[in-house]
């Protein structure tokens, strides 16, 4: 299983773009990269998932270089409500089995 590494914490100010990078050096061919957001006392919420290059949705963008050994979650123009823990997850799909590895999580604090 690919182990993931993220910064423990990051601070930002409202309106700024935030980039959180996750490294997953041992990622395998069948692995996907998924990011989750978690507020206190809530379950993780899916943000975005990708395999390679760039993926964008209404919430965030995910950049994955060609070697796929890292990925960067980009949050445009953050607000105070984006303060949360962000998890990088490597998901391996192998038939009906699914192996899951959570990163340590990055505590993002958005300041006014």
């Amino acid at each position, binding site marked *: 299983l690919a182990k993931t590494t993220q910064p423990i914490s990051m601070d930002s100010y409202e309106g700024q773009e935030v980039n959180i990078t996750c490294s997953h050096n041992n990622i395998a061919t069948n692995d*996907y990269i998924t990011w989750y957001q978690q507020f206190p*006392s809530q*379950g*993780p919420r899916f943000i975005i998932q990708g395999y390679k290059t760039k993926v964008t949705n209404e919430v965030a963008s995910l950049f994955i270089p060609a070697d796929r050994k890292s990925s960067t979650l980009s949050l445009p123009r953050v607000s105070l409500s984006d303060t949360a823990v962000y998890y990088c*997850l490597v*998901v391996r799909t192998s038939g009906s089995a*699914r192996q*899951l590895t959570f990163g*340590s999580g990055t505590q993002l604090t958005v300041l006014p």
Partner: protein
Amino acid sequence: SAVISQKPSRDICQRGTSLTIQCQVDSQVTMMFWYRQQPGQSLTLIATANQGSEATYESGFVIDKFPISRPNLTFSTLTVSNMSPEDSSIYLCSVGQGGTQYFGPGTRLLVL
């Protein structure tokens, strides 16, 4: 996306007792997952539950301590047996759908 509910949302229990946590999904899913999140920590996978077969436990988790039932494709239970204060955690149910993992709101357990 899958909608997941858990019962109870929280509980305070005495050591030596057991608690059964219920997880209900609004659609049929093949695989359901149970996680534990200890205070200030990331999520750790306890086991994977497939309907009609025995649950598969991760290293460090055993069936006698965390028995799981999966009677149908929308429901599962996790029992935390013979509890000790070290079992105080948030327990989360998760399902995979369309290549994405969704999480329930969690059950916050405090063992005294």
